[in-house]
């Protein structure tokens, strides 16, 4: 953390020249944009000759008050080596050094700076972007006021087992802080307030230390169970010239991601035996599919057994129209199961128990006595104690502390080996029954969606059906959470690709939906996918500035408001309390609804440069409004249609 004001330029160059990590630096460094110096080696101070000449002419100013090789540049080299595409950030002085290095030295590419209006938006964008793209986005914020804003979104990512690469600015050397704000923006231990819900953090005190920790953090974040990590960037380290003795030691460490842990072979064999012998096995998947391979592997296992699959939608796990997709019949299947395989379940206990939220809270088992439970869950490898997202303790029969996606091929192989001809015949019969059940469930969903078809406020079934009609021939992706629209998209749409659904927030911290949709849409942009978002009104209002970010960065995204004019979950909770207390049962709207005045979401979006229309109250107006908005989105920009809807 040198705060030396001058540097001997010749020594600096000499020292830098001896670094030799070129072989270890990925192409990203060499591929830096035009403004960037040619980077023969990471951390090497190769600078344009012209700049050097000017510098020689005025030693006082040039040598003591400027530098053309600040520490932040080397940090950018490291970020480039990690192939980080974007850094989402609300600008802040504690990281002005690396900010400037990113845009000028790094050429504002790999990573590109995304201007965000709230740190919560930055993190939630990164959160959903990962689920669509499979690699982490960086987030840059103040170590103090920024991380505090970001904390809730970080908690969501933690609960959702998603890596977010957090970089936070801080000024450690008290004698070098500017009086006033910089003191308020400095902290001894920036990570302390997050340590319960991030996987790892460090506070490097030198650039070589930064390099190792930055690469290590990436590796830790990407090892299942994946979670956010944090590197605190000292201001001096970012802004000061790279000292010559340090320059000679600078190199970017090699990144080798850890292969995800696979279930123990004995446990895999036992699980396969139970599944093959079962009369009524059920496969339940929650945060299973980390990569597109997750879907393929689950289909292979399900077809090897001809077993029903219940998708709990933590990720896009299983094609919605595959005949073995029996998510609609989950309750009945679980009640009749003799073996249940849970793949990365957030809540195995809750999957096999019913819990009653009444004055006297009671629970009961949903399964038959003797039903065998098999769990494959990477979270068993890493659990923290303070925040209670780990749910009730599940009493299972076979538990693999392992990554389910990585374990599935071995399990499927074992199942195929054990399946005798007799069992295969039984599997085929099961398949026939399940195909029929799937068809019936689909028909039932259509019948249900027809109710309240002409209603105003517009039914969520109608909303989903109208939207589907407009996008079904595109390469589409639903980038929103969809918990609050009665699951209509899953019931009516044909999901089969990993990016078509990105799960939900993880921690149920409201305010995730809007920025997550923008982050998911950003990932989809370069693949030419059409991103759509069904957006809750309460969620929208947390940090609406993200719509400006979408407009500014030309992120194509159709947002359809599910505007029920309330924090509706809370309306229901207050109703429950009033009923229980037998008083004021007409007053659950107080403190929970978003009326008087009604929010004009189209106006808000328009004010941020987003094409927008609404509020729409007549369902017959939906199709033309969607068409107009989609025309804008197909041209590469965001658009919004505000729809006044039924509550759920």
């Amino acid at each position, binding site marked *: 953390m040198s705060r030396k004001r001058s540097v001997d330029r010749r020594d600096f160059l000499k020292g830098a020249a001896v670094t030799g990590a070129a072989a270890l630096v990925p192409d990203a460094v060499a591929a830096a944009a035009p403004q960037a110096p040619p980077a023969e080696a990471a951390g090497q101070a190769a600078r344009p000759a012209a700049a050097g000449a000017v510098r020689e002419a005025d030693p006082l100013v040039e040598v003591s008050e400027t530098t053309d090789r600040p520490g932040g540049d080397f940090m950018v080299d490291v970020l480039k080596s990690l192939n980080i595409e974007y850094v989402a950030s609300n600008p802040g002085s504690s990281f002005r050094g690396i900010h400037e290095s990113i845009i000028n030295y790094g050429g504002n590419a790999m990573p590109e700076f995304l201007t965000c209006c709230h740190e919560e938006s930055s993190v939630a964008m990164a959160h959903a972007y990962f689920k669509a793209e499979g690699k982490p986005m960086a987030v840059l914020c103040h170590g103090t006021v920024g991380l505090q804003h970001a904390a809730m979104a970080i908690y969501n990512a933690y609960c959702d087992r998603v890596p977010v690469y957090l970089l936070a600015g801080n000024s450690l050397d008290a004698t070098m802080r500017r009086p006033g704000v910089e003191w308020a923006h400095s902290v001894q231990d920036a990570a302390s307030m997050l340590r319960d819900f991030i996987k790892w953090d460090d506070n490097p005190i030198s650039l070589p230390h930064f390099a190792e920790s930055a690469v290590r953090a990436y590796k830790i974040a990407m090892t299942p169970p994946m979670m956010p990590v944090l590197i605190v960037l000292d201001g001096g380290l970012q802004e000061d010239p790279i000292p010559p003795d340090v320059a000679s030691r600078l190199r970017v460490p090699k990144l080798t991601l850890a292969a995800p842990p696979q279930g123990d072979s004995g446990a895999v064999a036992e699980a396969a035996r139970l599944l093959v012998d079962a009369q009524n096995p059920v496969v339940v998947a929650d945060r299973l599919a980390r990569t597109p391979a997750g879907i393929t592997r689950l289909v292979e296992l399900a077809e090897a057994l001809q077993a029903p699959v219940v998708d709990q939608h933590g990720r896009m796990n299983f094609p919605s129209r595959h005949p073995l997709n029996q998510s609609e019949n989950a309750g009945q299947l679980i009640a009749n199961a003799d073996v249940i395989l849970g793949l990365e379940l957030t809540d195995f206990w809750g999957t096999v128990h019913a819990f009653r939220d009444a004055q006297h809270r009671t629970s009961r088992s949903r399964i038959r006595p003797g039903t065998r439970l098999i769990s494959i869950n990477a979270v068993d490898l890493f659990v923290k104690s303070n925040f209670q997202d780990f749910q009730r303790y599940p009493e299972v029969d076979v538990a693999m502390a392992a990554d389910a996606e990585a374990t599935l091929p071995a399990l499927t192989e074992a199942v195929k080996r054990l399946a005798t001809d007799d069992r295969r015949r039984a599997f085929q019969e099961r398949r026939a029954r399940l195909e029929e059940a799937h068809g019936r469930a689909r028909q039932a969903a259509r019948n*249900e969606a027809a*109710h309240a078809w002409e209603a105003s406020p517009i039914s969520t079934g109608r909303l989903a059906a109208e939207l589907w009609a407009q996008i079904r021939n595109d390469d589409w992706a639903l980038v929103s959470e969809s918990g609050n629209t009665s699951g209509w998209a899953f019931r009516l749409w044909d999901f089969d690709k990993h990016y078509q659904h990105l799960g939900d927030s993880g921690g149920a911290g409201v305010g995730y939906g809007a920025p997550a949709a923008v982050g998911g849409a950003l990932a989809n942009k370069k693949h030419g996918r059409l991103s759509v978002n069904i957006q809750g009104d309460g969620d929208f209002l947390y940090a609406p500035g993200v719509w400006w970010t979408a407009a500014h960065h030309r992120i194509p995204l159709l947002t359809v408001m599910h505007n029920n004019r309330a924090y509706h979950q809370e309306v229901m909770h207050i109703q429950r309390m009033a*009923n229980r207390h037998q008083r004021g*049962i007409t007053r659950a709207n107080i403190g929970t609804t978003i009326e008087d005045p009604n929010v004009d979401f189209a106006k808000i979006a328009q004010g941020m440069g987003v094409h927008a229309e609404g509020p729409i109250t007549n369902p017959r107006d939906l199709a033309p409004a969607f068409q107009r908005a989609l025309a804008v989105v197909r041209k590469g920009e965001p658009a919004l249609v505000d729809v006044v809807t039924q509550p759920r």
Partner: protein
Amino acid sequence: MKTMMAAAAVLFLVTAVAGAQTPAPAQQTAPAGNADSGAKVWKSVGCWQCHGYEAQGGAAGPRLAARNLPWTGFSAYVRRPANQMPLYTEKALPTADLAHIYAYVQSRPAPPQNIPLLLK
């Protein structure tokens, strides 16, 4: 904590007894209700929150529209729900109002058939 539990236990007994004393809604025909009044009560006391404004149902509560549920079961369920639905006691929601609600639910039309959008 213990006092709280004790109080809760007493409350439970009280409601249980009160529940038992409420005359069982045995009559098969509903007391006279008016669908228009029912629409208002449906909205004011919160049934819409979980069952939808049109009683069409959704993730938070099942469809009640176009099911022709008998009054006996309907009213019994509201008074003593077995699962997630919050109970509505006679004190909070008089039977006369529940009868209006019932009339409203019964008046919800059958859905249109063969909607082209739902066939894709």
